[in-house]
């Protein structure tokens, strides 16, 4: 059981890293298009908003992974209660 929880935590940590990269990639895409002069006028606001959301989502998943780790450790320490 606790291994499964820890497994989820590990995946979420990797996802948090990927989301942080997504924020960087969005920035890079926007910069590239702006530099080439082909960026649509709405792109800057859209990318800014989604970049912030990616960063926030990465933080959320990092927190969730940390909580899942604590949960896994707690579950590992305590045996399951005896059924009555």
């Amino acid at each position, binding site marked *: 059981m606790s291994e*499964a929880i820890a497994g989820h935590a590990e995946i979420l940590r990797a996802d948090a890293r990927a989301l942080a990269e*997504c924020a960087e990639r969005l920035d890079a895409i926007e910069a590239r298009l702006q530099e080439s002069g082909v960026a649509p006028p709405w792109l800057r606001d859209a990318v800014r908003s989604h970049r912030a959301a990616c960063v926030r989502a990465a933080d959320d998943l990092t927190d969730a992974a940390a909580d899942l780790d604590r949960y896994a450790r707690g579950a590992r320490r305590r045996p399951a209660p005896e059924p009555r």
Partner: protein
Amino acid sequence: MSEETDPAAGLLRDAAREVADIGVVIQEAARHATAALTDRAVLGSVSRAPSAGCRAGRTLVRALTGGQGLGHALVGGRLGTLAGKLGAMAGAESLAVRVMAVSLRLRIAAVTRTHPELADDPLLVRLIEAAAADRDLEAIRALRALLKDRGAVRTLSGLAPVFGEVLALRALLDENPLNDTAAWLIATGQGYASADPILGLSNRAVAVLDTGEGAARRIELTAAESARLSAEGTLLGFLRNIDAIGTTGRMLIQSVQGPDGTTRHVVHAPGMRTGRPDNDSPQDLLGAFSSAVLDSNPYSRALAKAVADYGLPHGAELALIGHSAGGAAIMNLAQDAEFCARYSVTHVVAVGSPVDFKKPADPHTWIASVTNQHDIIPTLDGQGAGGCFDLHPDWYTVDYRDSTHLFPLCHSIERYLANLADDLPEERAVIDGRLAPYHGPVVRAQAYRLYDRVPYPEGFPFLTVPTHPVDTPRGTVELPIRCQDGSALTAYFAVEPDAARRLLRGTGLGPAVQMRDRAVVVVRACWNRRTSLGGYRELHLGVVVPDPWRPGSLRVWPDLLRDADRRCSGDVLAGSVVDSAGVHDLTRTLWGGESYLAPMEFELTAGTAHIAVGGLRDRVLTLDGPLGLGFPARDRDLVTYTSRNGTTLRSCVRTEGRCRIHPMPRVRLDVGQNTHPFARRLRELGLDGERPALCVSVTSRRSLRDAAVPVQTT
């Protein structure tokens, strides 16, 4: 004219592809978080560490439903999917969907670079902006304004290059959860749009209505059609063949002798047949739909049956050429491993077809796809001009634009032919170069009619009857005469009883059936278009008489409605006209009575009739005018009495069809001013200038007519 010519558009497409990839990464993260939240193993351990478990749960819920991060992002698994759909219905969006919308908008921006008319048109801009901003009411208003200003054809044509993107945008952002999967597939290019992006109606659910094992029957093309077939194997020749066959439920196979002396074969598959959405042809609307959506469908199975019937040796080389739904159907054939094991499918050329998610069974099959960017049909699988994914790096794809923006004109095979002939010489040369083994004289050709399932024999079951030969002065004739397709008009007149009595004198039959103290006389004109004796027109004049053996019976009217095998009453033939010399020669032998040979005209629609006997200068009669109100009914058999050498003969015509009874016809019978005996007889009955009391019209019927049988009536 074709391919990417604007570097800016290329940059935008690259960006769209990368943003779509980011959207997929975000969606995967949301899926993983949902799996962690709903995993039984996670939930089951709460009793061991209740505080930490609840805290982890709360953090996950916040991550998956907080508006600032992943958004409303529950996805995957039963619980996650249900919660996700409920969220979509409430208008809550996930970050992944919002990022994917950016990708779609970049795709639209890329298309706009090469289609500046999209940016110049304020109404189109308004619609696209509203769709991208998830302003439903505004999008509907913009669409309505477009339709009002341009009409459906111009609106569709204008939108065509970004049709898939606009629909996917709307579907991703609207509150309908049923179309989200289809929109996601369009946006990511991961597969065929599994549902229509507007309502979310499952494509497969619609496509499975198209059932049948497929069947093909050899047919002969008309001389005019055959003359249009190409005698040489070239790309344009093959496409002209498809044009010649038309969207008529048929296909063609040609064999060409290649430059190396080898005989190869070309399967031509035209597009959708017009008419009812679901008819007996696999080329109907449902067939077009299932060709695009399914891997195998009645159209492709019917094509395989035609190829099998054509009789090709194992391993014979085949090129498959298709237009529209035909292109999707030949791709289905190309991805049929069993078919490809039997024959060597060397080339597939699909023109104006939604084939992006088809995959040939033989990796060596060379595939070309030709699409006009204003043609909506190829975009029905969700990938059109705005596509940013290279789904087929090994295919030869020609995605071009021309000045003809109007759909469906730009979808027609004629337009594609003209484009390939005049505007795309390089692309045509590439395809023709690959088709070089098929360049050569056509040595054999066979057309087929295709069916959803094995068709009934013609006329089955009504015309499936035993036949027998009868010797006549014109040679042996097979009876009964079977008419596959005919039409008839029967006009009932009320005449002076004395006139009818004079006509019946000496026949031993009668008295004439009366209606309000007037005798009933019938004029019946038929056009037997396809019979076992060929086509011919005929007209009968008869006096309606009761049962010859029980003339006083009161049951004459019910008896007249009985089927021929149980009817005793009938018409005494007072003369007939037929326009076929062959049938005229048989008349006296087979049925007796007076018959004349004369030209006839027969035109019958649901509301009017025009029947003329005799030429323009020696007109015997015309029966012409509107038929008035008609009530549907079952067509009735005919029983006719004639006499030959003093013997009474009874003959029957059994019919099958739906007729219309016209109780207030306004047709008028005019008798020609000449001495023709038939005209004289009509005048004797006082029919010149008369209107019938009742008419019965039948525009399509089958009939069986055997020889007359002598009956003793005295």
